């Protein structure tokens, strides 16, 4: 039902390869010898319902789910937010898991149930988001009263202090701490999903998240305190490579397998996107749910579940490539973890390239130290300033002053964090927390320090320059820029779709 991913070495018979640049798609001819990493693909398979029932009845260790329930208990179900599972699933597995958890809770006579989206510094979810994640049944059952909420990292009334580290109070969601049992529902499609870090960064206060995961942060003390104070178990659904269907099926197909219908669909998309406004791309891709194969469902403690889920995921996603590359090439899809609504900022696109795609190699980066990254993205200024107001101001005000993370963390971050305007946008208007933009910038720093050049093809020159990157008109121009440092024949690796794949460099 599935075929594994593989690394293809470009030869004379290799057709031009699909590259995504936000909502745009294009075919690019890569030079002979380029390694193209194709993710695994296949017919969606696996039954989330039966796999969930089995996982709840037989956890990795400990008692079954039903044995943990008793009448009169305080039960809290937390779940990963919309930044996980991009593009969105046609049938979100969180709905299946939460419905089964609630059905068992109802049978056990548990009345005091609260559901909290572990949004952390990301935007708080609205009714439509809740319905998309949890389905009509659960969202309508709980949304009409405060029992279905998004975590608020800046609301003192819903946070409580559970410890202290380096003079900073460690504060966590009050309901979670005071519950008899907490179940965290994760969806695992990448190496960063599931586990205590996802749980902590999704449900702590903004100051605590900054202390643990900000610039030069240390998560260990926070992890320890949270482990001691919160009785949490986890259910994680591991999903494989998403596959598009219908008119955009060509995005998931390998180019030499394109049928005439898929070729026509590609040509039609090119013309439509070239003619229509930018928002048309969002209409074409962002609102189009895709099918995911279910690789497995695990329940148990947070750490156990993360370990098992990540082992399963790695076994499915890992693709071996020969040697570290001089140049890593990647596209940026319109919908990704930093832009789940398809309206992401240039900072989010840079995060996707330099944190996510650069990190696909795990301990061994895909590109060698001093190498270059070539990415396809317009870095345009047409993004949602409602969602990413702080990111817009950071690009306009902070980065022209300095790109030094130390200086940014001491001079600008406290001002943004204390600004009631940003806090109000975050709490009331569905904006990302102001610290989120800073953390994205901090996440880029290891890649920026290791790389010689970061070049964006088709990018807005001003935005690229402000962020410290280079802009090139075409892929050939980008290679020309990189060649000044890397020579005329660099080793190139192109990750065709950085969703649902991990790269093992041999």
């Amino acid at each position: 039902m599935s075929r594994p991913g593989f690394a293809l070495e470009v030869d004379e018979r290799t057709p031009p390869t699909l590259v995504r640049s936000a909502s745009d798609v294009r075919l690019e001819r890569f030079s002979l010898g380029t390694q193209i990493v194709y993710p695994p693909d296949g017919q969606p398979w696996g039954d989330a319902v039966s796999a969930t029932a089995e996982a709840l009845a037989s956890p990795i260790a400990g008692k079954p789910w039903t044995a943990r329930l008793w009448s009169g208990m305080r039960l809290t179900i937390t779940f990963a937010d919309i930044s996980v599972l991009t593009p969105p699933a046609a049938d979100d597995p969180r709905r299946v898991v939460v419905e089964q958890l609630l059905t068992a809770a109802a049978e056990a006579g548990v009345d005091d149930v609260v559901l909290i989206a572990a949004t952390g510094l990301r935007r708080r979810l609205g009714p439509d988001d809740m319905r998309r994640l949890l389905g009509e049944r659960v969202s309508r059952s709980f949304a009409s009263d405060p029992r279905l909420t998004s975590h608020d990292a800046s609301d003192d009334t819903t946070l409580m202090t559970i410890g202290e580290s380096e003079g900073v109070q460690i504060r966590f969601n009050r309901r979670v701490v005071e519950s008899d049992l907490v179940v965290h529902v994760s969806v695992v499609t990448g190496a960063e999903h599931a586990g205590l870090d996802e749980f902590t960064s999704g449900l702590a206060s903004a100051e605590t998240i900054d202390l643990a995961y900000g610039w030069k942060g240390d998560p260990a003390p926070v992890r320890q305190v949270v482990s001691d104070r919160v009785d949490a178990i986890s259910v994680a659904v591991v999903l494989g490579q998403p596959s598009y269907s219908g008119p955009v099926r060509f995005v998931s197909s390998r180019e030499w397998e394109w049928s005439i219908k898929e070729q026509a669909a590609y040509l039609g998309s090119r013309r439509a996107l070239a003619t229509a406004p930018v928002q048309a791309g969002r209409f074409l891709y962002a609102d189009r749910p895709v099918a995911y194969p279910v690789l497995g469902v695990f329940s148990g403690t947070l750490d156990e579940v993360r370990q098992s889920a990540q082992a399963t995921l790695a076994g499915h996603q890992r693709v071996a490539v020969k040697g570290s590359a001089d140049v890593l090439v990647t596209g940026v899809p319109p919908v990704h973890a930093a832009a789940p609504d398809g309206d992401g900022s240039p900072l989010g696109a840079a995060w996707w390239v330099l944190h996510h795609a650069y990190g696909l190699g795990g301990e061994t980066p895909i590109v060698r130290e001093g190498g270059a990254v070539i990415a396809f993205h317009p870095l345009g200024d047409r993004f949602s300033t409602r969602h990413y107001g702080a990111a817009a101001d950071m690009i306009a005000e902070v980065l022209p002053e300095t790109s030094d993370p130390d200086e940014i963390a001491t001079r600008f971050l406290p001002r943004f964090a204390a600004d009631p305007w940003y806090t109000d946008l975050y709490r009331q208007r569905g904006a990302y927390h102001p610290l989120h933009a800073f953390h994205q910038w901090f996440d880029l720093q290891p890649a920026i320090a290791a790389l010689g050049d970061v070049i964006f093809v088709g990018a807005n020159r001003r935005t690229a320059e402000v962020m410290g990157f280079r802009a090139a008109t075409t892929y050939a121009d980008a290679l020309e820029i990189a060649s000044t440092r890397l020579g005329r024949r660099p080793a190139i690796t192109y990750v065709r779709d950085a969703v649902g794949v991990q790269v093992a460099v041999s």
Partner: protein
Amino acid sequence: MTREFAAWADPRSTHRSRPASWHNPFQGALKDIRLVGRNWRWGRGALSPGDVERLPVQQRRSALPVPVRASLRDPFVGWLRRVKVEVTGLSSRSGDARVALAHVESGADLAVLLEAIPASWNVVTTRVPKALAQGRSVLIVTDFASPSAVDVVAQAAQLATRFERAVVPVVVRRLAVSPQVASRLPTLRNVDEVLVRYGDEIRDANPVTVAQRSFDVVGDLLAEDDATWWQVVSGQVTSPLVRSMPAWRRLWERTDPDRDNARTRRRIWA
């Protein structure tokens, strides 16, 4: 401003937008066609790269899903068809044979159900015993409020137990009915919201038990109209029996705007 930028990238410089120009939508089309057609052989598709030829045979074939009847859940197509379908409670898409026992109240409901039922179930609606004997799923529809429902459900339960298949109760609920207005293009105001609710599978050796549980489950699924799913599963409301009444009265009651406060949208943000 402490950083130095190239003159063309200096954020302080005044930016003059380009003068408006006519955009040729076909610009670059020939290049696109040339790229797509590279290595293409009529009747045989494109050449495969050398590395692909060296893969095991089973890894060369395309295994992507063929688009199936999910179109009604596609917001765009659903919008065109003036119906937005949401499926809840579907517990399995596997191709195991089963008896789908559906409560529908109109031909339109049945049309929605036929589109929304998983294609992998491969249901048939005729020659039911023969289909069950061959291991195929069947779809049996009735209006549970009609006098004939008792007989239909009893026969469905008999068939399911005889062939040892599960019964899956389904209800189709149209939440808003808009009058068909004479407009050329559909508008969002005319979108009907239809919920297709699946119940848990019923397996029992006794057909009487299966029939009774089918009525109970359908009652629970219908009770979600007035209450919520959580209230039903946690036993906070008793499932109302399906009351016998003319179709227009059911429609009238269900579309009463003051009927259900739980359906009103409230803000989640505090």
